[in-house]
């Protein structure tokens, strides 16, 4: 009995000693992290299929933008090295290094830094309470980020983003977007949750998450580099911007037909995010499958088809 009392007293004392430390402890995310791609794998590694907008809360403006987006756009020299914005870049293949910057005198946390190997991006998350820049400041791929801890969770707010992608099949994110992130660490596992609000291209906030595993090995130096040099891939009239005419996407039904999904679901929109939408889908027709290999190609052939926007007429573009 006496031993039990001693044990209980020891536990209570130890707990009391630890409490202040626990209350003020903040997870340290420093280290090298690598993503796990099992979540949303088809979008992240093979890459999204054209005209697959299902489950994304896009509006009609984003839909028309993406329906007009010709993948040949990224052959333009000025768009070949286009960086993925911070709301999207964590989805891709990458190595992530995280470290802290502290005041050398006070050891107070000034910023948390992320180095992202894809496109060699360095991101700063200010932790010292500074305000975001004014409305006339430049926008960047990573945006301007400030963070704070809520318990052990790091919460980050980001503004001043450049225009980028919600999904790299042409679904845009505007430079007016605002991102809130939640970083949670459980041992060697880090969960990253993104809530993206975009008054231009989203009808409702987009929530997505991805997990990272802490690397215990040093990575070769070259794995941190991303050298991109643009070249002329396709000779075309200067100033031409490849695009499809609205409503004339030559592969409009290809994704739906390949996977046997009602066409309306591939249009995306807030309603397609929720389980109840399955009831709507039950009443929608399934489009005919694509012809088998060797048969006549469905959808449209490579090269754009009739709906392709001219770009340069007699006086067109440069």
């Amino acid at each position: 009995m006496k031993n039990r009392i001693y044990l209980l007293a020891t536990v209570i004392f130890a707990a009391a000693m630890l409490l202040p430390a626990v209350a003020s402890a903040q997870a340290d995310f420093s280290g090298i992290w690598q993503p796990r791609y099992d979540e949303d794998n088809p979008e992240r590694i093979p890459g999204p299929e054209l005209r697959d907008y299902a489950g994304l809360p896009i509006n009609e403006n984003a839909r028309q933008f993406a329906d007009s987006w010709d993948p040949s756009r990224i052959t333009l020299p000025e768009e070949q090295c286009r960086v993925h914005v911070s709301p999207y870049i964590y989805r891709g293949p990458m190595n992530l290094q995280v470290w802290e910057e502290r005041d050398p005198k006070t050891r107070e946390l000034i910023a948390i830094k992320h180095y992202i190997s894809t496109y060699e991006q360095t991101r700063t998350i200010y932790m010292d309470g500074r305000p975001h820049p004014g409305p006339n400041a430049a926008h960047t791929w990573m945006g301007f980020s400030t963070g704070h801890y809520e318990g052990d969770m790091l919460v980050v707010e980001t503004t001043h983003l450049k225009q980028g992608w919600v999904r790299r099949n042409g679904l845009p994110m505007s430079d007016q977007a605002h991102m809130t992130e939640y970083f949670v660490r459980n041992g060697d596992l880090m969960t990253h949750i993104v809530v993206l609000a975009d008054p231009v291209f989203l009808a409702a906030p987009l929530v997505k998450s991805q997990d990272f595993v802490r690397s215990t090995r040093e990575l070769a130096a070259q794995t941190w580099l991303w050298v991109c040099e643009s070249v002329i891939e396709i000779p075309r009239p200067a100033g031409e911007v490849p695009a499809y005419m609205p409503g004339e996407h030559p592969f409009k039904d290809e994704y739906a037909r390949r996977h046997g999904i009602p066409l309306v679901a591939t249009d995306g929109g807030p309603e397609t995010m929720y389980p109840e939408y399955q009831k709507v889908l039950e009443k929608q027709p399934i489009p005919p499958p694509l012809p088998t290999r060797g048969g006549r190609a469905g959808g449209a052939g490579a090269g754009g088809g009739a709906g392709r926007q001219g770009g340069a007429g007699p006086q067109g573009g440069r």
Partner: protein
Amino acid sequence: MRTSKCEGRSGRQGRRPARWLFVAGAVVSAAVATVGGVRAQQQNFDNVQIDAVKVTDNVYMLVGAGGNVTVQFGPEGVLVVDTSYAQMSGKILAEIRKLSSEPIRYVVNTHVHPDHIGGNEAIAKAGRTRAGGNVVGDLGAGATNQAAVLAHENVLNRMSMPPPGQQEVPSAAWPTETYIGKKKEMIFNNEAVQIIHEENAHTDGDSLVFFRRNDVIATGDLFTTTMYPFIDEANGGTINGYVDALNDILDLTVASNVNEGGTMVIPGHGRLCDEQDVIEYRDMVTIVRDRIREYVKRGMTLEQVKAKKPTLDWDRRYGDGFVKPDAFIDVVYKQLSAEKAAAAKPAGSAKASPAPKAKESGK
């Protein structure tokens, strides 16, 4: 029933744009062009704060009411690109004085609109240019009593002979030095400064100002982040010239190795930008123009084109700006219809074509 009526008209109008469209377009253009002046009279400037955005150690962007003002300064003095509304002059001068105590030597006007030239008189008079020899001999010491005001010659022509319905500009605000041709160059504050003319774009007197050492371009309204392009037809603007100007800006810009920064771009209105921001805007303007060109080619009426919503993608980004989607579509449709009509005419009759002049590809 209504649809069939429209279709009935479309056949005729598709081949040749109605004359009323040209007249209406000119009236709208003139009206829009005067809005800047009317706005200035109606706006209360007392509460407007200037946001001085540092671009480099020697170049700042001043944002308040009206167009953005660019200030480059150094040991030789101060060069100011555009002067906003007249009512903003005091606040702009106060900001310039925070940056440099050296005299204002030059004012450059990117174009003729009142939200960009309104402060010419007050800001130029607060400065002093350098002059000697015959100039002082002919004009007296007063030749140096103000900063030189530089602009393309068409700016002076438009100010001194405004189109009907547009406000007159007092002669004290006119450019004191104009250039013709593609560009004017000078060294100022140990920096090559190129003032580059863009033909028939936003107006017919547009200039870009490229500060080569600082690697900064002030674009005037050839590029903005707040609205669809304002193609001021009454002052010689064309959609094809506007697209060409955006591509010319991209020919000058070089991004850094992470594809942002590098050459910084100060727009006529809106926030500080770099090459990628201009690319997004160029893509938008080009795609909208090309859509409308295709619809014109298919013989569609203006109403049918508007029903297709060729700007829908960007309406939540730019649609609330100074140029509404319909106004943008109106002017593009009109000019591309004229382009189509001109292309359809026999070679010998091309002289009479009202089609806007399009530049050749490349530089």
